[in-house]
């Protein structure tokens, strides 16, 4: 049994979505890896060219089914840049709260997938349990649990109900209280450390060169977070820190994500405290002209949306930069030389979401 190619996917319990990772293994060691994409291609960019600026928002929600709000927000941000409008202060805070809630929900979903990846099925249900409360909060804000369709060009769709602040703080307290449980489940488990520490090493230079962003980059000791690097909304007025880990292995990527969740609760608390009263939406112009782009920190890395408008009701060109698409570029580099069993931990730590990758 020398080298054999193994198709991990498109139907495989490991794939977090519909994609095929072809792995060439020599015994248990991975010699080569080759991600094949396109199983979920829906032509979102083409669809955008036929729709109104507002009609694109629900379409962008469906880019990533795990963190949909971040995508519609990124689009709205870019469209506002294109239309040159300033949104009300309250809408900014509401967006930050919604984004961070969505980030926690997305990271919990990642944790729920990462647990079974390393063989700990219990983590799945633990993370899902907490995610329910977070989704309840998102539902309270937007009325939907999955594809919220909440941000609008020029603000957000609606204001939150008056009891939202108290309930959200309660959920944050509950979630912070669970931190110890997670640390005992993961960080205290010798087998979990064995599976993740020193596995899937990605050096700082490689990470920068390959265009990797997000937690994969921050796990390799590069403190780049678009929320501070290219600040949007009110992130620069809130008190929080960019999470970085030094080692560049699966454990540090895991740790970055876990710490980010607790950091997000901090942001939400601060935003809830500082949130002013006022309107939540302004009316955008209908036919913008020009080109604009904005970067946001998606739940998985740097999301960039580039819009070209030609003075019509629908944009001339919309381009989505998917962080996972770029991070997948690093997968073959990280995988090479690791064992086949580590493939799960590595692909899990990259946090693949195929919806946004294939667009």
């Amino acid at each position, binding site marked *: *049994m020398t080298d*054999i*190619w193994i*198709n991990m996917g498109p139907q495989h319990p490991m794939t977090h979505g519909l994609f095929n990772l072809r792995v060439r293994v020599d015994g248990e060691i991975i010699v080569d890896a080759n991600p094949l994409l396109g199983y979920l291609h829906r032509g979102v960019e083409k669809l955008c060219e036929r729709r109104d600026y507002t009609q694109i928002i629900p379409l962008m929600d469906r880019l990533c089914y795990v963190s949909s709000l971040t995508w519609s927000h990124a689009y709205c941000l870019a469209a506002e840049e294109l239309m040159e409008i300033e949104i009300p202060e309250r809408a900014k805070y509401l967006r930050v709260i919604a984004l961070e809630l969505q980030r926690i929900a997305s990271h919990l979903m990642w944790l729920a997938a990462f647990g079974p990846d390393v063989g700990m099925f219990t983590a799945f249900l633990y993370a899902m349990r907490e995610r329910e409360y977070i989704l309840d909060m998102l539902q309270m804000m937007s009325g939907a649990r999955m594809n919220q369709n909440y941000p609008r060009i020029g603000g957000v769709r609606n204001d939150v109900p008056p009891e939202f602040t108290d309930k959200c703080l309660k959920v944050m307290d509950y979630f912070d209280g669970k931190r110890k449980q997670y640390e005992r489940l993961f960080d205290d488990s010798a087998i979990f450390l064995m599976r993740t520490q020193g596995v899937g090493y990605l050096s700082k230079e490689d990470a920068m060169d390959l265009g990797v962003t997000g937690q994969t980059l921050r796990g390799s000791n590069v403190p780049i977070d678009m929320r501070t690097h290219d600040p949007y909304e009110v992130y620069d007025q809130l008190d929080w820190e960019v999470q970085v880990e030094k080692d560049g292995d699966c454990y540090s990527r895991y740790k970055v994500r876990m710490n980010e969740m607790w950091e997000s609760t901090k942001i939400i608390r601060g935003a809830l405290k500082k949130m002013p009263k006022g309107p939540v939406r302004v009316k955008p112009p209908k036919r913008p002209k020009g080109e604009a782009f904005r970067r946001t920190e998606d739940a998985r890395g740097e999301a960039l949306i580039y819009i070209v408008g030609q003075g019509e009701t629908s944009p001339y060109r919309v381009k989505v930069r998917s962080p996972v698409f770029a991070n997948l570029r690093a997968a073959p580099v990280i995988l090479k030389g690791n064992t086949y069993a580590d493939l799960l931990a590595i692909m899990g730590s990259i946090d693949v979401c195929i919806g946004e990758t294939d667009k």
Partner: protein
Amino acid sequence: MVEWDLFFFIALSVVEVVASILVIASKKLVHSAFWLAITLITMGAIYILLRSEFIAVVQILVYAGAVPVLFVFGIMLTRRKMMEEPNE
């Protein structure tokens, strides 16, 4: 009166002889290893007929337990034709 010992002895011997012939007659190395395991296990059963249970179980533990090693080598040193073809 049925001679149970004789009956079982004949039955086991037939199985063993057939299996041991198949060890050398099989075309695939892995099949040979499989028949070898059958041979060794039936030999253990014959030891039980001889009222020597200990040597029977040791026979199974040592020899039949060692067959998987042979099996692994068989897999590593041979190739199945289907595996080489690209996946359709």
